[in-house]
């Protein structure tokens, strides 16, 4: 397997992807190629299943045939056990892609008389591997051998030889082992398998069981060292890693509408695609309605949405939202909307996360609503909650999913514990608050934060009616901020006084106009008088002139008549 001249850096250990969701992320690419890996854990923690999935994925995804050496279960039992996961082992067996060999070890039948070795087992393995050209092999559970043979020294020497032999043959192997009290495995198998050790665990805390996985050791490779929860469901094993150990999600500047125009305006144009929104508020402040609007809008635009409901059944949510004119039922029918309604107490925190992860992977929604997040995290300790939420947000962000979380604030407390934790992860935080004033309860909404947007700093009144959600400007006047009927009353009062003033103003104008008219008339009269006067003067002047002319003529005539000179 390591025969290829490596063009890669030497430190890049070749790996065989397991195909198990999440495990390849933790192991940074898969199990060491051509080397054995030890999977240790208590009874019933999923060792066999993990090993089988490793083989099946090898066949289906990488075209690598596999051999399953079972020291405990019969091939028929194995096939039946994994049939529930949708794996048809018989088909693989028929196609020569899978070989199951049951090695029966029964102590009582065997008498030991002299020295021996386990060459028979080697021959068996070799034969099985060769007959289908296997690249992967599982030995489940090797420790059974210890009960079959008395000579421990021989057995251990042979085991050591076996692992060497597997390596030489370039087999990527999983060896399972039962968890011991003081060591990883009861028989100390970890002593022989030193390349990669994975520990599975199954714990019950507060009546809720959680399976966890930890990579104890991975020689020559970077790997996640935490305990990661994993889930076994009808799709096999899903390990829930912190999907990205660093924050390098590609971000979108594309916006999506919340479905409430005025809210989009407040957010400076809607939510960023792939961002997370926290809607917090006390009971009955309309958080679910906001969620419903977002889902409705997304579905109308042809996107798929996932609604995770922890408190209400899908029917109830559909009915309640239809009362404000949001028809989610149609989207559910068309398949664009998927509900996932579970009691938050039905599973552990991690399991919720893992199953959410599975649903998201499968359904690939663009919008996810979790309503409410509070019940989910209510009883757990804050660190777990923070841990889980960061993982969930990471997961959703890396998938570019817009998510809306609702959070219930308990009355009397300004901020819940959840909000403190969630708010740091959320890109946008909307708070819906009830105000009691003037004998009524009204809702206010404001944007506490919204990363990367020029969001409004205004408080808006949030009105829910059968026509849907409306945001209106609150009344800001001399009396302070008013909402509800007080706002309406104040607005009406303002309107009437306005009218009165207007009327008064109108009257005054009329009066002035009349006065103006009177003056104009007066002016007209005076002008006419003036004109008459002027005419009289002109007449007078012309008469005077005429007279002077006649006077002069008369004087000349007199002179002539006197005969003077």
């Amino acid at each position: 397997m390591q025969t290829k001249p490596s063009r890669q850096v030497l430190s890049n250990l070749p790996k065989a992807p397991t195909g198990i969701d999440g495990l390849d992320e933790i192991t940074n690419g898969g199990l060491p190629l051509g080397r054995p890996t030890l999977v240790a854990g208590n009874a019933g923690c999923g060792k066999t299943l993990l090993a089988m999935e490793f083989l099946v994925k090898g066949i289906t995804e990488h075209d690598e045939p596999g051999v399953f050496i079972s020291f405990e279960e019969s091939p028929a039992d194995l096939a039946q056990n994994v049939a529930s996961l949708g794996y048809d082992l018989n088909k693989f067996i028929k196609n020569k892609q899978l070989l199951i060999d049951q090695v029966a070890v029964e102590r009582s039948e065997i008498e030991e008389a002299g020295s021996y070795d386990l060459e028979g087992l080697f021959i068996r393995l070799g034969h099985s591997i060769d007959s289908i050209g296997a690249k992967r092999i599982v030995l489940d559970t090797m420790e059974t051998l210890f009960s079959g043979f008395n000579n421990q020294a021989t057995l251990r020497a042979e085991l050591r030889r076996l692992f060497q032999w597997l390596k030489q043959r370039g087999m990527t192997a999983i060896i399972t082992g039962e968890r011991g009290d003081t060591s990883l495995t009861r028989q100390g198998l970890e002593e022989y398998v030193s390349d990669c050790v994975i520990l599975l665990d199954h714990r019950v805390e507060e009546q809720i069981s959680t399976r966890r996985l930890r990579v104890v050791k991975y020689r020559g490779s970077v790997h996640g060292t935490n305990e990661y929860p994993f889930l076994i469901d009808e799709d096999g094993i899903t390990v829930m890693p912190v999907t990205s150990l660093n924050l390098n999600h590609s971000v979108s500047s594309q916006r999506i509408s919340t479905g409430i125009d005025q809210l989009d305006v407040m957010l400076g144009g809607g939510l960023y695609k792939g961002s997370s929104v926290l809607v917090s508020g006390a009971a009955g402040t309309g958080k679910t309605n906001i969620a419903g609007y977002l889902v409705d809008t997304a579905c109308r635009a042809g996107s798929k949405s996932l609604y995770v409901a922890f408190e209400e059944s899908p029917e109830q949510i559909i009915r309640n939202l239809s009362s404000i004119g949001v028809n989610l039922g149609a989207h559910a029918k068309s398949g664009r909307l998927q509900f996932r309604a579970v009691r938050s107490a039905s599973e552990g925190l991690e399991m919720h996360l893992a199953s959410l992860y599975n649903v998201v992977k499968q359904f690939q929604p663009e919008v996810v609503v979790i309503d409410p997040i509070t019940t989910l995290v209510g009883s757990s300790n804050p660190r777990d909650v923070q841990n889980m939420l960061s993982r969930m947000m990471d997961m959703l962000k890396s998938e570019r999913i817009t998510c809306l979380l609702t959070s219930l604030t308990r009355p009397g407390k300004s901020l819940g514990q959840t909000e403190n934790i969630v708010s740091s992860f959320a890109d946008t935080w909307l708070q819906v608050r009830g105000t009691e004033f003037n004998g009524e309860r009204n809702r206010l909404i404001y944007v506490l934060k919204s990363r990367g947007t020029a969001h409004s700093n205004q408080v808006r009144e949030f009105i829910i009616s059968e026509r849907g959600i409306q945001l209106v400007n609150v009344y800001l006047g001399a009396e302070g901020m008013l909402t509800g009927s007080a706002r309406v009353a104040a607005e009406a009062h303002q309107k009437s006084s306005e009218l009165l003033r207007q009327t008064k103003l109108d009257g005054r104008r009329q009066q002035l106009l009349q006065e103006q008219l009177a003056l104009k008339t007066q002016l007209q009269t005076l002008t006419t008088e003036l004109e008459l006067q002027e005419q009289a003067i002109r007449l007078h002047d012309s008469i005077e002139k005429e007279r002077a002319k006649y006077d002069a003529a008369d004087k000349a005539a007199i002179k002539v008549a006197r005969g003077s000179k």
Partner: protein
Amino acid sequence: MTPPIKRPSRSPGVVSNMSDHKEYELRLYIAGTTPKSVLAMKNLQRYCDEYLEGRYSIEIIDLLTKPQLALGDQILAVPTLVRRMPVPIRRIIGDLSNEERVLIGLDLRERP
């Protein structure tokens, strides 16, 4: 009359006794000619001559040439001696150098 055991290297997996239906049907699984397998064959022959004269047949199976039998007959350790008849089937592993254990394994001696 002692039936000869044929060497697996020459003729592997051949029934050594000509006549059928012996009281004791024995099979010895080995993996090639190793000191252990040679010793086991020698020891087996000795015990048969001594305790089962004329009542046995021995089949030597070399798993190197018939690896599929390791699977079918559930063989892990070599050498393995299997008493196929009389029932119940008995298995004895090792080079058979511990006579006491072999005889107990073949039910030729009472268990202590």
